[in-house]
């Protein structure tokens, strides 16, 4: 097979010559050469994401002190302590309230905005939503603290512009972030402002994937307006509805920065007034960094982890009956 004048590397490759030790090593290592390229990324992700994920399980079952000294196995102690904390259950209720308002509101508002932007673009000569789509999306990429602070000002009960306008209609406008009843709605208003533009874009992508001929066919059949939306557009949009539901749930369950800033985290008042906005994420933060109770904070994080996995599974199961895949 080998010819006399075959170049050396080729003959080495087919094994015509006795192999030296480096050659053998090279053959052994060759299938893993790609690891050199993968290593930097893999290293970062393993050290800063996978190791912490494992550590979460470990710390939850230990009386853990930062640094490890004096830590001991705790069995289920942390869980027992956690479940006996009224504030833990309260935070779940607060988070549930937040999520149960945010997810449906997000679905309705972002879908309505998507229809509006698309229809308006269709009726005008331009092909896309252009400026208004961009302006509705823009809040999503703005920094949370900077924009939360202007909302704190807008919602200020005394000199905010919101109540200035409301006073023209009602004699006693709400105290917004300073009242227990309206603090969570205030956060919901901010969060919707910050996020619906993003979900609108997801819906726009879903809408764009509906073939025009289907809508045309519906029109020919005399199905128009809301009936066309309900019977043609919406069924074809269920994959987007599923996606938005899952993402909105996961994102609201984990909201932190806007709640912290809006409720006065810099003054040490995050989650207030009277714990009315203490969500799971805030309670984890406070437990670890105000009360220095790392094990309890880790146990709560583990519960959040489990809860998110469960919710995702339930949503997948629920939507498997509803989602219409073409």
């Amino acid at each position: 097979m080998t010819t006399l004048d075959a170049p050396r590397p080729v003959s080495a490759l087919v094994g015509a010559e006795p192999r030296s030790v480096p050659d053998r090593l090279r053959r052994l290592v060759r299938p893993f050469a790609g690891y050199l390229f993968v290593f930097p990324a893999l290293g970062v992700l393993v050290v800063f994401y996978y190791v912490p994920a494992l550590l979460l399980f470990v710390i939850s079952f230990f009386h853990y002190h930062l640094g490890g000294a004096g830590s001991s196995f705790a069995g289920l102690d942390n869980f027992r302590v956690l479940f006996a904390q009224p504030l833990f259950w309260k935070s779940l209720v607060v988070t549930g309230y937040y999520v149960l308002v945010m997810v449906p509101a997000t679905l309705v508002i972002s879908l309505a905005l998507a229809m509006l932007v698309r229809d308006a673009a269709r009726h005008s000569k331009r092909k896309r939503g252009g400026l208004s789509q961009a302006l509705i999306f823009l809040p999503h990429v703005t920094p949370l603290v900077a924009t939360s602070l202007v909302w704190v000002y807008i919602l200020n009960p005394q000199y905010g512009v919101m109540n200035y306008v409301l006073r023209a209609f009602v004699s006693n406008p709400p105290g917004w972030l300073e009242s227990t009843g309206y603090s969570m709605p205030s956060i919901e208003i901010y969060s919707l402002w910050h996020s619906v533009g993003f979900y609108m874009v997801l819906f726009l992508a879903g809408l764009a994937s509906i073939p025009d001929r289907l809508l045309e066919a519906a029109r020919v059949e005399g199905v128009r307006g809301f009936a066309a939306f309900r019977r043609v557009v919406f069924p074809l949009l269920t994959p987007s509805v599923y996606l938005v539901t899952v993402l909105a749930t996961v994102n609201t369950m984990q909201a932190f920065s806007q709640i912290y800033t809006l409720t006065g985290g810099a003054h040490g008042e995050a989650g207030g007034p009277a714990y009315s906005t203490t969500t799971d994420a805030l309670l984890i933060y406070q437990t670890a960094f105000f009360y220095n109770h790392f094990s309890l904070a880790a146990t709560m994080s583990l519960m959040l982890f489990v809860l998110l996995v469960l919710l995702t599974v339930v949503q997948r199961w629920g939507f498997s009956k509803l989602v219409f895949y073409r």
Partner: protein
Amino acid sequence: MSARRRLHRYGLGAVRAIAAAAFSFPLYWMLVTATGPRGAAYRFPPRILPGLDFHSFVTVIDGSNWARYMLNSTFITATTIVLVLFTSALAGWALVALPLGLRGAVFIVLLGTMLLPEQALIIPQYVVNFHLHLLNTYAVMIVPFAATSSSIFLFRQYFATMPAEWRDAARVEGLGNLRYLWRVAFPAAKPVVFTVILLTFIASWNQFQWPLIMTQNPSIAPIELALNQYQSAYEASQRLINAVSLLALLPIVAVFAVAQRHIVGAVGGLDTGVEG
């Protein structure tokens, strides 16, 4: 065009304009408040037009460390972008073109962090950073974000579509894997490079919760963290807070104005935008 159709068209246009105005209002209000005269933020009726008074910006930049915080954020963001491009392009390339034992498993591990909820990890991440002596350093705001699953995935997808003939031709020319990647494949993946830069810029510039927890030293604070501390300071008025907020916001808006279509596509197309 019938009257009904015209009504439909202009009606929709009007509703859309109102929606866009409502969503822009808070950002507009920042500008109005920051550029108004002293004390105007607490007076009724409120001013509704931006003023021409830029003293608030001079006050905060001269009087405090805002130039420093802007610089901190710029340094953190720029370094993170460079590192993300480097690690993600290498990994994406390896997944497509290099011999890689257990390729499927490596692929899953590299992309799997998308499924990990970030709020649930922050406590053990603090512990890891503690043991690595990263708390209170610039590095803690850079290194953990120096590789992201989404960027690796984007590079992998793009490299997979590049013709294999290019590589064969390059090999004949004697171009090694690494040189081929940086001289040919990486420049050819310009749309992905652009997307990764934009996504990393937004995430890094806006980071707040992470530095809040992982750092204490005010001199390394990025702008969002400094803003949080500033609002509770005694000298802060609404006018000054909004001036500083605008400083934090401006780079984002500027980039958005230039690359609006690309950002909407990049953020919307990824489905991984977990908010901090």
